[in-house]
C-alpha cells in the first residue's frame, strides 16, 4: 500500500512541482512527512492540467491547483528530497 497525504497547494514552483501544506495523513503511512512538502507530480486526474509537461504553464497550474485541497499518492522521494506523487482531487467540500 502506498503512503497517502492530503493538504492544500500553497505555491506552484515549476511545471511539475508545487509546495503543499500537509493537513492529513493516512494512519497506516510508513514514512514521516513534514507540515510543508514539495511535490513533484508524475500523474494527475485534474482535467485542466495537460499530461504533457511541455503544454503546461505556471499560470494554468495556479488556476487548476492553487489553494486546492488535494490527495497525493506517494511513489518515492527524489534526490532533491521532493515527494514524487500521483496527484488527484480529494472528495468534495460540498455537493
Amino acid at each position, binding site marked *: 500500500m502506498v503512503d497517502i497525504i492530503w493538504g492544500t497547494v500553497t505555491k506552484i514552483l515549476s511545471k511539475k512541482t508545487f509546495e503543499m501544506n500537509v493537513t492529513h495523513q493516512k494512519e497506516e503511512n510508513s514514512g514521516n512527512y513534514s507540515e510543508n512538502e514539495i511535490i513533484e507530480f508524475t500523474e494527475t486526474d485534474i482535467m485542466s492540467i495537460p499530461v504533457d509537461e511541455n503544454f503546461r504553464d505556471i499560470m494554468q497550474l495556479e488556476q487548476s491547483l492553487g489553494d486546492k*485541497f488535494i490527495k497525493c499518492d506517494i511513489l518515492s522521494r527524489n534526490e532533491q528530497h521532493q515527494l514524487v506523487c500521483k496527484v488527484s482531487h480529494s472528495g468534495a467540500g460540498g455537493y
Partner: protein
Amino acid sequence: MSITCSPLLIDRNSTSSRYYEELIKGKIPAIIIPNFLSSIICQKLVRNIITSKTSRGCGITQKIGESVNSYISKKIQYFKKTKLTNKHLRNIFSDIDPRETMLNQISKTFKKKIKFADENSMLYSEGIIRLHIPGESVYIHRDNASFDASDFLISKLSGQLSAVLHLQSCESGGELVIFNKFWNIDDEKFRNPGFGYSRDIVSETPYTSIRCNQGDLVIINPNKYHSVNMIRGRLKRITLGFFFASSSESSFRAWS
C-alpha cells in the same frame, strides 16, 4: 453557539429582486415558502421515489440524480450518467413534475427567467433527490461550483443559490443548520479528505436551524457553511434540490 436571525417566510405571491441580493450578501439565512406543495402531492411523489432505484453519492448513501461535485475530474462520465438519470427523474415525475413548479416559483419570486443549464448541447442533471436514512447526518460543508467545478461551464455563473423542496419529513432530527459564516479560500486547510469540513470551522459561529417540514420550499445561499442534523425515527428525510445562479442580469441557470 448562539442562534442567528430567522429565515424569511414568504408566500407564493411575494416577489422581489431584493430577496436574491439579501441571500447573496448573507443578510438573511434562508427564504422559506411554507406548504409550497400539498401533503397529498408530496406523498404521491414519495411513493414513486421509494420504489425507485437509488445510488450512492458523495456525502450521501441514497440519491437519485447526479451532483457535479461527485464528478469533478470525470466530466464525460457526469454527462453520460446524467443522460440516464435525467430520464429516470422524468419517469418518477411523469404525473406531477415538482421541478417545473419550483422553477416557475423561483422565476416569479426573484423576477428572473430560469432553466436547467446545458454545455455543448448536453444537459446538466435536472435536480437530485436525496434520501437521508435514519441515523445519517450530513457533515458541515458549503457548495461552491465556481471553486470546486472549475472545469464545468456552470463554474462561470455568479451568485449560486440552492433550492430544496422537502418531500418527506423525518420523525425528528434532520434539521438544516445554516451557520452565519461564508466559505473562504483559506478554509481549505480545514477540509476533510472525504467530504466537508472539520467542525472547528464553525466553532462559536451563530447558526439558524430549519425544520424539515413536508411541502416547504427552502432557498439558501450554499456558500455559507451548513449541515443536516442526524435523522431520527423510522422515516427517511427526502428532499428534491438543485442549485441555480445568474447567467445574466435577467436569467438563472439551474443544475445539480
